[in-house]
C-alpha cells in the first residue's frame, strides 16, 4: 500500500527524519506513535506530498509520489488543525471540496451522523473547535478512497462523536481499507489499531502489534509499554 524507503528530512538544522523505512500493507489500521517532535506529522505529510523529502522514495499504491498529484485521489486526509477559510459556509466548503475531487452523496450520511445539519449555513469562522473537527471528518470520510490518513482525529470531539468516529474507522477497515492514524490518546490507539509504528528521533523504533510491543517491553499494558520505551531511551 505505502512503501517508504530511506526517508530523510531536515528543517533548517533540525534533522527530523533520518532514514525511515516503512512498509504498510493493504488493509488494517496503523497507528503512528512517538513523542512530540518525533516526526510523525512530517512523515504523514511526506506521504501526502506536502513535505518534500531530502532523500528517499515513497510509493503509494505502486505509484512514486514524486512530482505527482494524481495519487492523492486515492487518499483521504484529515489534517491536524482544522483551520478553514473563515468566511466560507460549511455547505460551500463541502461543495467546493467535492468539486475538486469527485461527486459523492456520502456527505449527507456523515452530516447526519455528526449532527451537523444546524451548522450547514454557518460560516466556518464562527464554529467551535469540536464542530470544525466534525466538518473536517465529514470532508475526510465522504470520499471512498483506499487509503485514509488521520492526523489527531480525536481532537476536540465529545464522547458521543468519539464513539461514532471509532465506528466509522472500524467500518472503513471492514471495507478492506488501510487507515493511518496518529494520536496521543493511548486508549484510542489501543482500542482501534491493528499495528503500531513507533517513531523516535527520526527513526522507526518499533513496528508491530500492540501485543508484540507489550512482550518486547515486558509491560502488562500498552501505556506503560510506551512509557517504558521513552524512559529507556532517555535514561
Amino acid at each position: 500500500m505505502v512503501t517508504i524507503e530511506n526517508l530523510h528530512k531536515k528543517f533548517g538544522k533540525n534533522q527530523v527524519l533520518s532514514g525511515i523505512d516503512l512498509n504498510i500493507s493493504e488493509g488494517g489500521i496503523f497507528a503512528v506513535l512517538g513523542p512530540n517532535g518525533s516526526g510523525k506529522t512530517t512523515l504523514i505529510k511526506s506521504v501526502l506530498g506536502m513535505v518534500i523529502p531530502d532523500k528517499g522514495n515513497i510509493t503509494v499504491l505502486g505509484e512514486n509520489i514524486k512530482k505527482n498529484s494524481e495519487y492523492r485521489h486515492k487518499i483521504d486526509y484529515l489534517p491536524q488543525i482544522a483551520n478553514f477559510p473563515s468566511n466560507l459556509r460549511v455547505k460551500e466548503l463541502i461543495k467546493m471540496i467535492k468539486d475538486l475531487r469527485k461527486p459523492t452523496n456520502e456527505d449527507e450520511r456523515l452530516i447526519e451522523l455528526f449532527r451537523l445539519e444546524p451548522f450547514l449555513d454557518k460560516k466556518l469562522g464562527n464554529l467551535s473547535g469540536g464542530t470544525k473537527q466534525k466538518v473536517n471528518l465529514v470532508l475526510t470520510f465522504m470520499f471512498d478512497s483506499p487509503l485514509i490518513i488521520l492526523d489527531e482525529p480525536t481532537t476536540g470531539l465529545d464522547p458521543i462523536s468519539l464513539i461514532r468516529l471509532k465506528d466509522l474507522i472500524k467500518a472503513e477497515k471492514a471495507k478492506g481499507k488501510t487507515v493511518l492514524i496518529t494520536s496521543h490518546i493511548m486508549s484510542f490507539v489501543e482500542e482501534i489499531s491493528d499495528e503500531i509504528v513507533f517513531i523516535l528521533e527520526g527513526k522507526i523504533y518499533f513496528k508491530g502489534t500492540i501485543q508484540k510491543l507489550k512482550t518486547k517491553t515486558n509491560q502488562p499494558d500498552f501505556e506503560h509499554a510506551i512509557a517504558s520505551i521513552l524512559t529507556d531511551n532517555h535514561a
Partner: protein
Amino acid sequence: MRSRWSYVYFAFYLLLGVVLLFLNNDLSKAVITLMNVIIVLVPLIGTIFGVMYYYNSQEFTELLLAQPIKRSSIFLGQYLGVALSLSMSLILGLGIPFVFYGLFESSAIWDFSLLLITGTFLTLIFTALAFNIALSNENKIKGFGYAILLWLFLAVIYDGLFLMTLILFEDYPLDKVSLIGTMLNPIDLSRTLILLKLDISALLGYTGAVFKQFFGTSFGLIVSFVMLTIWVVMPVLRIVFKSKKKDF
C-alpha cells in the same frame, strides 16, 4: 476573504476617481494626478494585499495541498485570484467614474487606457513579488516587513540611488545606463511608459542617440512592454518553482 477586500479596494478606486474628477474638473489633469497615484499606490496595495492574502489563506492552502491538485495550480490559482481581482477593482473602480465623466469623447482616453494597462501590470508584478516574499518567509511579521521594504525600495529609494549615480558619473555617457536602470525597476518602467505619453516633448529634448531611438520611436513602448511582461513572468515562475519545493 478575497471578495470582501477587493470590494474595499474597488470602493477606494471608485472614490478616488470621483474625487479626482470633482476636484479637477478636467480629465487631462485628473489623468496626470492619477498617474502619480497609480505608480505609488498600486504597487503598495498589490504587495500588502498579496502578502496578507497568502498568510491568511495558509490553512486553506494546506487543505488544498492534501487534495489531488497540482501544487503549481494551487498557487497560481491563488495568485491569479488575488491579482486579477485587484486588477478588476482597479479597472472598474477608476473606469466607471471616468466613463461617466465622458472619457470616450475625450482625447485623454489613450492616456487613460495606458494608465490602466500599466496599473494592471504593476498589480500582477507586485502581487507576484509579494507571493514570493510570503512563500520564503514563514514569519508573518517578517514577511510584511520585507514586503513594505520592497515597495519602499522600488518606489523611492531606488530612484534616489539612481539619481545619485547619474549625478556622480555625469561626465560619462549615461543614456544606456539610465535606460537599463529604468528597466530593472518595474515602477520606473511603468513611469517611463507613462512619460512616453505625457512628457514626450521634454524627453525629446535630450541629446543622446540611444534615448532618441528609445523615446522617439515605438521601440521604447515595445521594449517597455516586453520588460513588464518579463517582470510578471519571472516572479510567477519563481512562485511555481518555490512552491514545488516548499514544505507545509
